[in-house]
């Protein structure tokens, strides 16, 4: 049976992991390769590396980092941050990334999605959506790392993007992100039940029970989190054993 995926996310700035980490086993807590390798050995199903500098001059640093990650990591990984052109994608894939994640650039020019899907295959095109539930009780798409509101509904944008060829959707709830109060179950389920691509839920995971909820009530195909893994608030092996015991299909 196809299993639900647990995906740690590493934020990268200038080639280093940004958020502090707290692992004795790691010689250099700022080294994303070490941290990624540790998570892979603990049973992470995939990894996401998000480059939050993503300026043109730093792109070379990123491709070199991706190359080092690909040499070391024996599970799939996605790279995101500032990807705009086919050349950006080609460099990352040639250096060993399995998938790339796009966000603002895809919204500004949706043909980006169809071009990437045609040239590299839908399976390696992940659309990241930063979503916020407004006072009118509707979920809207935000851009530029959550700084810019749009008038587009998340459900509309997700459907449009699937029709253009994205292979997966990484949905982050801005309302829930950082709260550790649980994932956004309603919007996650709405996308998961109506779209033919996997939905990766992100934002709000704080306890093992939150992950159980996002897979059962939220119908998510995968769940992503960052700091709770970095700070060892939730350990990946414990989380996966817990979910397995609750009857969720999980790779142990």
């Amino acid at each position, binding site marked *: 049976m196809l299993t639900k995926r647990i995906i740690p996310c590493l934020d990268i700035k200038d080639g280093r992991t940004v958020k502090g980490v707290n692992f004795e086993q790691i010689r250099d807590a700022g080294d994303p390769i070490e941290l990624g390798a540790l998570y892979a050995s603990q049973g992470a199903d995939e990894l996401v590396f998000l480059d939050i500098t993503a300026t043109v001059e730093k792109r070379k640093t990123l491709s070199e980092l991706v190359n080092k990650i690909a040499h070391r990591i024996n599970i799939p990984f996605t790279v995101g941050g500032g990807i705009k052109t086919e050349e950006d994608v080609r460099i990352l894939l040639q250096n*060993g990334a*399995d998938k790339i994640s796009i966000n603002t650039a895809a919204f500004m020019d949706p043909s980006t999605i169809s071009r990437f899907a045609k040239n590299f295959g839908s399976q390696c095109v992940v659309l990241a959506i930063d979503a916020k539930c407004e006072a009118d009780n509707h979920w809207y798409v935000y851009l530029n790392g959550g700084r810019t509101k749009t008038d587009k509904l998340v459900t509309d944008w997700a459907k449009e993007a699937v029709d253009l060829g994205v292979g997966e959707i990484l949905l982050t709830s801005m309302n829930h992100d950082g709260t550790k109060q649980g994932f956004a179950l309603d919007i996650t389920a709405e996308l998961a039940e109506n779209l033919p691509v996997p939905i990766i839920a992100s934002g709000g995971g704080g306890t093992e029970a939150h992950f159980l909820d996002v897979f059962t009530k939220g119908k998510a195909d995968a769940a992503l989190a960052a700091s709770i893994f970095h700070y060892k608030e939730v350990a990946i092996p414990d989380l996966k054993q817990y979910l397995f015991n609750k009857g969720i299909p999980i790779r142990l």
Partner: protein
Amino acid sequence: MNVTIIQYNAGNIQSVLYALERIGVTAVVTDDAAMIQAADKVIFPGVGEASTAMSYLKARNLDQLIVTLKQPVLGICLGMQLMCQHSAENDTPCLGIFEEQVLSFKAKEASTKIPQIGWNTISNLKTDLFKGIPENSFTYFVHGYYAGIGENTISTTNYIQEYSSALNKNNFYGVQFHPEKSAKVGEQIIQNFLEIKS
């Protein structure tokens, strides 16, 4: 040992190369017929679309070369599918090594995810390719088309229905999953392939 990866317009060549490096094997990536024929082991990778890949192989006569190889050959993902008789992906005649046909996953409901993306189990394991691999081990899959079950099936997986997750005929092996991305299990399968005698 001389391990050669067939170079064509496939997406995962680098990943296969790095996976081999992690187990201490340096492979050559080439589309040169003489070098491929001289190899001890040949890996035929593949992420992409069937008709485009077959056209590319034909334009370089690699289609005729692959079927005549005598050493162990391992097709991965699209590579395995191209070794079957025919693919439903753009109605593409394939290399015809394995007896099986490649069909398209059909969604049962709006929430059925196609392609299959993620970790699934491999079962009913046969041949030395799976030596030491426990039944129902997890491997990583990304695919929208699948090979049916037939006489060449050496592993089965269930997604929407039961299908072949690995095939074998004579010196030819194929796996639908990505051993190069399947953690320790994948590394063992690659190691097993490298140990298969010619």
